């Protein structure tokens, strides 16, 4: 069969600087092509070139044949929408917040003069129904902010499909979504491809998504195609070194877990924590608050890594912040060794903070842009230990080297470092004052896979070398499986299951845990699964009961 879209020697340049070079591929009807690569690999730039959406300074050369015309020909208007549809990563920004869903859906149909407003509304409702949005008539009168992220992405997909494109380009369509929602959206895309026979170009950084979705894969690095071939071949016998590195760096949810020996001594004991976030506004008009934490109790043992896993809104970050005393709990008790953290105030609290340090998700925002890296790392030492300057500088030097950076980097400012390096600096700061507990809140989710792998290695090393106890907050089950000794699964402010990593992953008992593990895309094309049922109905969410030794499940 002939290719729908045939790209030859696509190159994008700004001035003389090449951003993308020598990209060639064919996309057949009903085929899914994944373009995979890390940030800066040029994968999004490739999509933009095909859509004619390049920034004005950039020029594209080469050929991209679609429907008998060259998409890169500047004189021809690109067949946006009707020929090629584009789905963005962030469904909120892809929709106009001030117009109703219905208006946005029908707008393109009417402006392309495909049909009149009445017919457009009928078609839009049918399409919403098709992409799995219940009560489409009602939804069409709503505004984007009234819909959840997954719903919005469905609306965007419906919007694109309404115009009947033959090629759909999806740029990281599920990256901003929770893993259970991601699974549903991926299922939907797969169904659409199978039903309508369109060609799908899926741009992603997630090897799991690649393995589950694609027929062919194009691996990109620094603007160049590193490898191109059928998905099974790429995963089974990758030819390029880079593909191999990329595959090795991906944490596997189906990997074997090794259990570290942990002592049974409890370091941190959290009991009956409640936290409700109040709605804003004057008292009378205040809306009902959101219950972020609902009677949460938890023990962290000396030297272990306990992972808090859950989707957005599960309360995992709030729990971490409550333990770090960055957010005040409404009630409950936090006990660290013999110290009651909840009772600390003022000067005593500041002294106690030494014991609990945090690593934040966004390494770009968690370092003061106007302080040198050396000063940032030294801060806990300045606050808690009165050391002579020379001794302090020596400690900072050691810390910097310990996290794998060069000692003379201490004089530089954060913006001179890459994301991974910044996260190393944040780790150095966290361990500087030798805390007994480190809370790591999604420390790798803003990073590329290969950088993530190295940061996880570093954390692992710190844990062994410094005998750190760590509370690891993450939405990524594969990462958790790699680093955690025990796992607590959270949803809607409650812990639903708590057990050793082996117990949770090999023998999950709670239906939600099972669903959560089930939906994670595995980087192995042989394990491609069909459409999965979403977790429906109610599930036990009562107090935890010990199902087997050390394995607690909500009753």
């Amino acid at each position: 069969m002939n290719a729908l879209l045939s790209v030859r020697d696509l190159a994008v340049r700004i001035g003389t600087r090449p951003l993308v070079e020598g990209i060639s591929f064919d996309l057949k009807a009903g085929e899914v092509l994944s373009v995979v690569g890390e940030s800066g690999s040029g994968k999004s730039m490739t999509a933009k070139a095909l859509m004619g959406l390049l920034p004005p300074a950039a020029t594209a050369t080469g050929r991209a044949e679609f429907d008998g015309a060259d998409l890169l020909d500047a004189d021809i208007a690109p067949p946006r929408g009707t020929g090629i549809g584009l789905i963005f990563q962030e469904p909120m920004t892809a929709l106009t917040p001030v117009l109703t869903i219905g208006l946005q859906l029908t707008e393109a149909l009417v402006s392309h003069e495909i049909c009149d407003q009445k017919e457009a509304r009928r078609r839009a409702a049918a399409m919403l129904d098709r992409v799995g949005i219940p009560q489409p008539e009602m939804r069409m009168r709503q505004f984007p902010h009234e819909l959840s992220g997954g719903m919005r992405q469905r609306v965007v997909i419906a919007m694109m499909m309404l115009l009947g494109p033959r090629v759909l380009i999806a740029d990281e369509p599920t990256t901003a979504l929770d893993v259970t929602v991601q699974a549903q959206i991926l299922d939907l895309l797969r169904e659409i491809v199978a039903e309508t026979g369109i060609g799908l170009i899926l741009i992603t950084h997630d090897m799991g998504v690649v393995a589950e979705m694609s027929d062919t894969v194009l691996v990109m690095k620094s603007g160049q195609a590193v490898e191109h071939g059928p998905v099974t071949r790429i995963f089974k016998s990758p030819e390029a070194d880079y593909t191999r590195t990329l595959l090795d760096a991906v944490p596997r949810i189906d990997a074997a877990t090794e259990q570290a020996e942990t002592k049974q001594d409890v370091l941190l004991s959290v009991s009956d924590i409640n936290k409700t976030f109040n709605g804003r506004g004057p008292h009378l008009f205040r809306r009902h608050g959101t219950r972020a934490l609902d009677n949460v109790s938890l023990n962290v043992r000396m030297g272990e890594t306990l992972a808090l896993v859950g989707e957005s809104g599960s309360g995992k970050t709030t729990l971490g912040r409550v333990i770090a005393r960055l957010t005040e709990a409404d009630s409950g008790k936090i006990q660290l060794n013999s110290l009651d953290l909840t009772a600390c105030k003022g000067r005593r609290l500041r002294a106690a903070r030494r014991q609990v340090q945090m690593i934040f998700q966004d390494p770009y925002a968690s370092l003061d842009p106007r302080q040198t890296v050396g000063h940032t790392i030294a801060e806990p030492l300045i606050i808690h230990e009165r050391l002579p300057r020379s001794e302090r500088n020596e400690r900072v030097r050691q810390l910097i080297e310990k996290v794998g950076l060069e000692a003379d980097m201490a004089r530089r400012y954060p913006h001179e470092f890459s994301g991974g390096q910044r996260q190393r600096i944040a780790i150095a700061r966290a361990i500087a004052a030798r805390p007994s507990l480190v809370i790591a809140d999604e420390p790798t989710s803003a990073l590329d896979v290969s950088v993530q792998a190295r940061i996880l290695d570093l954390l692992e090393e710190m844990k062994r070398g410094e005998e750190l106890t760590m509370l690891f907050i993450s939405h990524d089950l594969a990462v958790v499986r790699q680093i955690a000794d025990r796992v607590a699964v959270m949803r809607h402010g409650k812990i639903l299951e708590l057990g050793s990593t082996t117990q949770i992953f090999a023998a999950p008992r709670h239906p939600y845990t099972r669903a959560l593990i089930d939906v994670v895309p595995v980087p192995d094309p042989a394990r491609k699964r069909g459409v999965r049922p979403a977790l429906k109905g109610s599930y036990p969410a009562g107090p935890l009961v010990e199902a087997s030794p050390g394995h607690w499940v909500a009753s």
Partner: protein
Amino acid sequence: MQTVTEPQTQRAPPGFWRRLVRSPSGLVGLSIVLLLVFCAAFADVLAPYSPTKMGAGGRFLPPGGKYLLGTDEFGRDMFSRILYGSRITLLIGAVAVGISLTVGMLVGMIAAFRRGWIEAILMRGTDVLFSFTETLIALSFVAVLGPSLQNAVIAVGVAGVPFYARTCYSAALVETSKPYFEASIAAGAGPARLVLTHLLPNVLPTMIVVATLGVSTAILAAAGLSFLGLGAQPPTSEWGYMLAGSRDYINRAPWLMTIPGLAIAVTVLGFNLLGDGLRTSLDPVERK
């Protein structure tokens, strides 16, 4: 463990001054402001005549000839008056903005840092003041304190406080909610440390830019007060006052009005351009 060499490590950015001078607006603005400072500093050397000596060569002499910018209704040399006027103008700008900036930043940072009822009182108070125009506040101040240049400067400074307080408050609010600030709290930093080493350096660049732009507003406001006869009193060579005094002679000697007017305009332009240049050169994003 081996040293990690990840890509994207940027070279040290060019220095602040070089960045400022490289931007066209920064260069022009800085030149104008430096020229002004030079004039003010060496007014007694540069001025060919005393700014207050009357009737030396005749009244209403047009520009050119012996008197570079002509003479006024009392026969005073306009060039010398403008030169001496730059002293007062700069002083007004600096002192008035100094008052607004200091008080405004204090209010804004305390409100953003302490939150709660202190925040409510400070910011709602600011809102109330903000609902009056600055000129009105300045006018009422002068009405109470009595007309004099000193009081006019204080009035202009106080009138500017709400604006600076609010700008600083919102800038500080952004900073205090950033993870680096929380990281410092989590590290156990006390209030002094949080404010002095984290908050202040991060809001200061914004405030410097705002203040530079504010200098021109302050100069204009003070000139306005002088124009109304509530600021500088005769025989002070203040541009706004000179502008006001020339009103009666607009047909006979138009340069009496245009020259101080131009001086004010160029000064305002200079500070505005400098503010623009500072904004780009102090912004860490632009630095990359």
